């Protein structure tokens, strides 16, 4: 691969040929370049390229937050660092690349063993990239002999026997005949290397061993924390902190860009990988690009030094100028993707002076895209106000219980449940507070009472309803107090680069990829519910919850989704603003269904795999036994059938995101079971088919959503998506990352219509209060009332729109045009006047329709106040729907 890249950069190989090869679907995994005697596999080349870019830029990226590039998800063959620093050391420019390249060819290509990224995964965990361990440029030259073979770690077959042993110990003390895992938590790869021969493996191991020893000496400390698996972020940050942030950063200038030809080639290759879905997670790549854009040079070099560096490193991405150049080019190239980011992100990008100085054109496009952007960070306007689960006489009064005692006990249990919840709210963030110590006994006492009274189904319902109330919304962590909005507002005050830094932090935050301590997989209140279940460890309760979760999930999965018109893809761009009223509603409803399904699926997965969770990966023997044992029983949810069905019915956009949540909870053995293995394989195929740029039946944003959730699932180990046939490797993904959970990014791109925007604060709070009151009104009413109101409003609203379309609009538009022509008043005020008059007429239509609505509801309700309020809400909703349709459509005129 290195040879291929070298050849490309030195223009010995035509870039078009490689790009075409990258674009070619599946069938052409290999690229042979006879004149160079090269054969390259796609699955090798892509990770190689990604790593190459990271290595090249690593110097400039020592700042900022945890670098995703340094997470285990990154294929980062350490050898590259060595190779390139070595190159720098011997000051060979492109002239030397021939021989060097050849040696690499020899190193990597002839072996039929495919050095998949699992190996690089290993390496990144070993943290060879760490600058502390491996000081860059010449400070400690590494001998070629030692550096070359490191890449060979990749195919090392590993066994599960010593999952947590220190890599170093593994390699130095374990006999080769009994290979053991060099990393914790990575699944053995037996059988994964098609045709890997043991001889080459032995060689590699020998070399690896030497290399490891060597490195250990270099590092000095025998067990530096950075050798701990999964700590890269930590060390990266440490390195970063060494570079004083105040240290003046070089101001990047387009004129100082060197090697622009090579950079352009890299941009093209890299962009192709992104466009063709060859990267494990496009959002991580986007983040990397943002990092490059905001990169700083660690030291203030004078110009001479810089160019020297650049010359030595061949492509010179590590230079700030070059980094920014590269980033801007990629952003230009990936504009379609970038344009789908939320408004604020786009604004920050557009206002970035680096973007402006490197590509005014890009800045202009970003500015334009801002206005079109409908993606929002906190999309659904949900009331911030937390409800209890209302007591509903229909389900909760005495007649629903088997005895007075059971009724009375449940009365107490409801109160204890909330008492525990409030206590958790108050104390869980205090140091030293432990859920089980503080609440465990109370919860278990409650469970045993429940068992004697047989109240599990009642409690399960309460529990799930409360879970949904508290965790369904996008703002999962209401306790943090630092809402994304506030964060963004704060950003506006900051200065250019600083803003982007924070944007960068925000971009990485939802990923929260494996760091020293993986981010909580159950953020905010979800943590309470998870801990509650763990403390309760009540099998009856869990069974009731599973039953209910399954039922609700399958129901949600069946929810009818109005698919956009068939021509959606071409109309995509206008669709965003031009969206029909029904469609906007549909989007909102869809996001709400999706968020709910994902939440429920996560908890279903959590409960279902809870009995099998182990803190350490079981040994091979235990695994085999467990597989044999568990394959006999029926899994809680037939995921295969669900997925198959969903694909057949083209509903993957709903099903896949929640399936991903469910599967992310799998235990170590889970992915080895046939049903999950098959599902994961199908998901993989699905992922590879989703090429964003290609206009197919699925619209861009839907694809983006799928790519991001699947990317998240696979991100943990990119090898999975590259070696599609190797289900086993997927294990590694789960092993290393099943608890590292995020899913936040999807929310960033879910398009929904905004309700409250930049209205004045007082007005806004009044509006909010009204929305809260409306929500509160439904709270204590039976759910059927809300459904009725929504249904009626929907019908009335859409009838009104139809009516307007047919009659009023034509007439009014005509009148408006006349008004314009007549030059009455300022031309600018016309559309709004138009709107107002249409709205006025609409209200009459709405009122008429309400007479009908009232009849519907009077069937259910006797109480005049409730009826009147329902009516008013219905009226408001209907009017709002029609008005939003109006403002959306009148604007266009």
């Amino acid at each position, binding site marked *: 691969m290195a040879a291929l890249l070298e050849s490309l950069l030195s223009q010995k190989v035509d870039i078009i040929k490689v790009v075409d090869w990258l674009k070619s679907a599946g069938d052409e995994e290999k690229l042979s370049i006879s004149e160079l005697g090269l054969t390259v596999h796609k699955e090798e080349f892509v990770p190689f390229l990604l790593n190459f870019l990271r290595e090249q830029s690593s110097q400039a990226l020592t700042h900022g937050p945890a670098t995703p590039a340094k997470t285990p998800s990154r294929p980062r063959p350490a050898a590259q660092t060595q190779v390139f620093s070595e190159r720098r050391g011997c000051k060979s420019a492109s002239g030397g690349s021939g021989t060097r390249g050849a040696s690499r060819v020899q190193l990597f290509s002839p072996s039929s063993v495919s050095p998949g990224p699992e190996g690089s995964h290993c390496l990144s965990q070993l943290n060879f990239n760490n600058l502390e361990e491996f000081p860059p440029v010449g400070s400690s030259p590494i001998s070629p002999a030692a550096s070359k073979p490191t890449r060979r770690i990749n195919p090392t077959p590993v066994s599960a026997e010593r999952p947590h042993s220190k890599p170093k110990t593994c390699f130095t003390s374990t006999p080769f005949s009994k290979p053991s895992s060099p990393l914790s938590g990575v699944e053995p790869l037996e059988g994964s290397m098609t045709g890997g021969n043991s001889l080459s493996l032995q060689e590699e191991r020998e070399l690896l061993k030497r290399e490891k020893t060597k490195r250990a000496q270099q590092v000095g400390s025998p067990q530096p924390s950075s050798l701990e698996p999964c700590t890269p972020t930590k060390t990266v940050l440490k390195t970063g902190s060494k570079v004083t942030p105040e240290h003046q950063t070089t101001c990047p200038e387009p004129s100082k860009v060197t090697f622009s030809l090579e950079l352009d080639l890299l941009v093209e290759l890299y962009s192709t990988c992104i466009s063709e879905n060859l990267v494990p997670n496009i959002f991580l790549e986007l983040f990397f690009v943002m990092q490059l854009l905001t990169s700083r040079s660690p030291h203030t070099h004078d110009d001479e030094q810089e160019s020297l560096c650049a010359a030595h490193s061949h492509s010179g991405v590590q230079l700030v100028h070059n980094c920014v150049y590269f980033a801007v080019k990629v952003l230009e190239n990936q504009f379609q993707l970038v344009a789908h980011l939320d408004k604020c992100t786009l604004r920050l990008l557009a206002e970035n002076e680096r973007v402006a100085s490197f590509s005014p054109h890009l800045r202009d496009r970003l500015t334009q895209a801002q206005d079109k952007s409908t993606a929002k960070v906190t999309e659904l306007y949900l009331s911030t106000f937390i409800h209890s689960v209302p007591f509903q006489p229909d389900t909760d009064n005495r007649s629903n219980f088997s005895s007075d005692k059971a009724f009375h006990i449940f009365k107490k249990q409801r109160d204890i449940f909330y008492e525990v919840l409030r206590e958790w709210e108050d104390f869980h963030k205090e140091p030293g507070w432990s859920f089980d110590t503080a609440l465990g006994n109370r919860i278990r006492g409650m469970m045993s009472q429940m068992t004697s009274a047989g109240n599990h189904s009642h409690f399960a319902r309460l529990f799930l309803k409360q879970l949904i109330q508290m965790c369904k919304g996008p703002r999962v962590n209401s306790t943090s107090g630092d809402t994304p909005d506030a964060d963004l507002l704060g950003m506006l005050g900051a200065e250019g680069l600083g803003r982007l830094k924070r944007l960068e932090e925000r971009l990485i935050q939802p990923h929260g990829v494996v760091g020293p301590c993986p981010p909580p997989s159950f953020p905010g209140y979800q943590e309470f519910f998870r801990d509650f279940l763990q403390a309760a460890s009540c099998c009856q309760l869990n069974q009731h919850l599973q039953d209910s979760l399954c039922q609700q999930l399958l129901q949600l999965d069946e929810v009818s989704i109005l698919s956009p018109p068939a021509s959606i893809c071409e109309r995509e761009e206008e669709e965003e603003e031009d969206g029909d009223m029904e469609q906007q509603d549909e989007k909102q409803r869809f996001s709400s269904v999706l968020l709910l399904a994902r939440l429920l699926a996560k908890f279903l997965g959590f409960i279902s795999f809870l009995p099998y969770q182990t803190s350490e990966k079981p040994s091979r023997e235990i695994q085999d036994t467990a597989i044999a044992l568990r394959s006999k029983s029926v899994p809680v949810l037939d995921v295969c059938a669900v997925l198959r069905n969903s694909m057949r019915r083209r509903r993957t956009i709903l099903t896949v995101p929640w399936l991903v949540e469910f599967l992310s909870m799998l235990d170590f053995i889970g992915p080895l079971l046939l049903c999950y293995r098959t599902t994961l394989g199908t998901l993989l195929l699905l992922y590879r088919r989703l090429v964003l740029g290609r206009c197919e039946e699925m619209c861009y944003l839907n694809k983006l959503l799928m790519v991001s959730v699947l990317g998240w699932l696979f991100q943990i180990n990119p090898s999975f998506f590259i070696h599609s046939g190797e289900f086993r490797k997927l294990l590694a993904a789960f092993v290393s990352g099943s608890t590292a959970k995020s899913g936040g990014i999807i929310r960033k791109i879910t398009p929904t219509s905004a309700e409250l925007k930049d*209205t004045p604060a007082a007005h806004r709070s009044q509006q909010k209060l009204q929305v809260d009151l409306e929500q509160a009104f439904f709270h204590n009413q039976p759910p059927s009332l809300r459904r009725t109101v929504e249904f009626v409003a929907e019908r009335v609203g859409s009838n009104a729109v139809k009516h307007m379309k047919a009659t009023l609009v034509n007439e009014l538009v005509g009148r408006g045009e006349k008004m314009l022509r007549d030059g009455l008043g300022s031309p600018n005020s016309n559309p709004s006047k138009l709107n107002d008059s249409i709205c006025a007429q609409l209200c009459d239509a709405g009122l008429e329709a309400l007479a009908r609505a009232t009849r519907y509801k009077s069937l259910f309700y006797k109480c005049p106040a409730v009826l009147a309020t329902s009516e008013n809400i219905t009226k408001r909703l209907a009017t709002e729907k029609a008005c939003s349709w109006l403002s959306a459509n009148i604007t266009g005129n």
Partner: protein
Amino acid sequence: MMRLSRAEHKEIVRWTEKLRPTRQCMKILKDRFPSHSQSTLLSIFSLEYQKRIKRTFSRHHVPDVIESYYQRYLSEAKAQPTAPVLLELANEVDLSPALMARIILDRFLQGQDGGMPSKSVLNSMLKEPSLIPDQILANNVYQCTINDCCYGPLVDCIKHAIGHEHEVLLREKLKEKNLSFLDENHLRTMGYDKTPDIILEVPVAVEGHIVHWIESKASFGDDQSHRTYLNEQFWSYWNRFGPGLVIYWYGFIGELDCQRDRGILLKDCFPTDIVTLCHATQQDRSPESQNKDKE
């Protein structure tokens, strides 16, 4: 001003420590704190006095102590048949007069037929002293009951009436404001397991906080009683009906009103700042969308 700071409340409590539950004592308290309403002061005193009695009652309620009180009563009543000897005895030993009457009557009835008198007999005699076979004791019991502002059937009756009065007052205010609600009785018939005084059929916002239910308390909200109410009532209401409002008609310690954001709002009167769902015929359109239209 019925919303007291904890310090103010403490100062009043300090003054109540030496007082007896008599009209004279209430007057002393009122003169000392002229800016506070009599009801508030009485309520605070009553709560404090009850605490005091709870603390000390076991000291009085031991057989030989009871016997000594009874013997003292007998001898003093014999010496001065018309004097309120029992009331004086109660004040002397710092026991609630009404409770003293109960203890002595209980002892008297035991002496009459040897067995333990039933509670209902005892209660009815306390309520209606003329039923007591002994005329002098009947007079003494009566004097104790009417001179105790914290315990006894009369006080219970007054408290009940006041509580009821405030509930009625609350309902009237709600009707005045055109707010539709369900009351406790209605809720019970629907099978609710815990019932606040009022549930609003259409919630309102008070000082920016959503209110689903209202509980009326014709007493002063001090630390202890509020804590008890929270645990036994208010949180239970929240757990079932969402956020709500508690009206302590006789005031409360201001610092206790700290759960507003969690859904328990305290007031010492019927709120004035009430926002209801308002549905204008034409929905206000945000300036944002209007600007958009102008583009």
